[in-house]
């Protein structure tokens, strides 16, 4: 019973956890804007600390689970929702009663998933799994994750890819954050109005932040 609602609850909870994760991720990425020598030490020390922490290890499993659950239940919800509307309208002006992003969360989600796959292949696979080109150590004996990032963003096409895909992320977060709270039963009217503003600001900070950093690193 209430299977559809339980799916939505899982979507909301995993989504909110991912929203929290993005704040931490973006804060760490900000270390990349420092001058080269400082950025290298800070970024490598930070990533070594994370890799060696048991707490972060546990969190990372939550993170993998959140991504998988979010994708899986989004897929199930989308399939069942499509079945509820088997015949589409000949003319449907959804732009007059709702935002484009709220109507296309699935499509935007696929773009973000594509980004996550490429992003994991670029970093996670090399650093955590040891696949591809070996990651060298810096002079403090830490894995030189800064170099991995820096060299990737010397490639013009990757800069474009990373910066452009920050845009769908922003759209997804803008609709997702405020909707997650409504799914979870937050129904305070004034609170929801405030939440809509918070969602917009949050989505702007995250997407502009993630979108700008590759460009800054490219021109460093």
């Amino acid at each position, binding site marked *: 019973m209430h299977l*559809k609602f339980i799916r939505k609850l899982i979507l909301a909870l995993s989504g909110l956890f991912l929203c929290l994760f993005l704040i931490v991720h973006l804060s760490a990425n900000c270390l990349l804007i420092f001058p080269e020598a400082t950025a290298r030490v800070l970024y490598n020390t930070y990533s070594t600390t994370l890799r060696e922490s048991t707490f972060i290890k546990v969190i990372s499993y939550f993170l993998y689970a959140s991504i998988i659950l979010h994708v899986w239940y989004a897929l199930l919800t989308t399939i069942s929702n499509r079945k509820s509307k088997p015949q589409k*309208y000949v003319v449907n002006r959804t732009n007059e009663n709702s935002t484009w992003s709220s109507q296309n969360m699935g499509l935007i989600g696929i773009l973000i998933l594509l980004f996550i796959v490429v992003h994991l292949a670029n970093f996670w696979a090399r650093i955590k799994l040891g696949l591809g080109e070996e990651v060298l150590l810096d002079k403090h004996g830490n894995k030189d994750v800064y170099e991995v990032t820096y060299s990737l963003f010397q490639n013009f096409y990757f800069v474009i890819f990373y910066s452009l895909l920050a845009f769908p992320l922003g759209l997804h977060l803008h609709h997702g954050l405020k909707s997650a709270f*409504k799914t979870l039963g937050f129904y305070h009217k004034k609170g929801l109005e405030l939440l809509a503003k918070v969602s917009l600001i949050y989505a702007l900070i995250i997407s502009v932040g993630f979108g700008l950093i590759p460009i800054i690193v490219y021109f460093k």
Partner: protein
Amino acid sequence: MKIKFKIWRQEGPEDKGAIKEYTVNDLTEEMSFLEALDHLNEQLVLKNEEVIAFEHDCREGICGQCGVFINGRAHGPINNITTCQLHMRSFNDGDTIFVEPWRAKSFPVIKDLIVDRSAFDRIIEHGAFISTNTGSAPEANALPIPKAVAESAMDAASCIGCGACVATCKNSSAALFTSAKINHLNNLPQGKAEEHKRVEEMTAQMDIEGFGSCTFTGACEVECPENISIVNIAEMHARLMKAKILG
């Protein structure tokens, strides 16, 4: 004014149906949209053609019978009105107007623009009432209800069950309708006794009928003739979780 109608025609539930074109030359801006359809039907009668079937009753925006998808919008281009409250002055001379029935798996087409909305009735049957016979109206001051509570219950109770929320929702979700019916009663002391049973059974029936999940596009509250707020859906979720936890 001259209007080119492109209207969905469908013989019956089994028929495939298709858009058919009609041109009407002598409409006036003062006509309501339904009167324009009446006018077209009169011309069809004179030509010995089958008239277009559409639902209507009060024609003053209170009964919830009328409701068609007009130019890509539930109840037409104006926010928060019923189809019968729409007038031809909202269109321009020479316009083409697409008219389609509500689209949802749970609202099968009966004929032309008429859909079967009995799925809503079955949701109502699962708890949108108070099951004890309370006799005649009690003394008004015996059961004080704070103004804010009375207002929010009344706001929810104003839902006329037209189905525009389901029609406009990309998921054909009935969450706005169901939440309005639940919150109307669950907000009031008379409805409190059965609040958990009500929310559990009505939302379960909503799923059984094949309506989709709410993804908060917000289209429903823009099309709702009674301005039912989408906040009702969030409140329904809170009530459902409370019912699940407290039993």
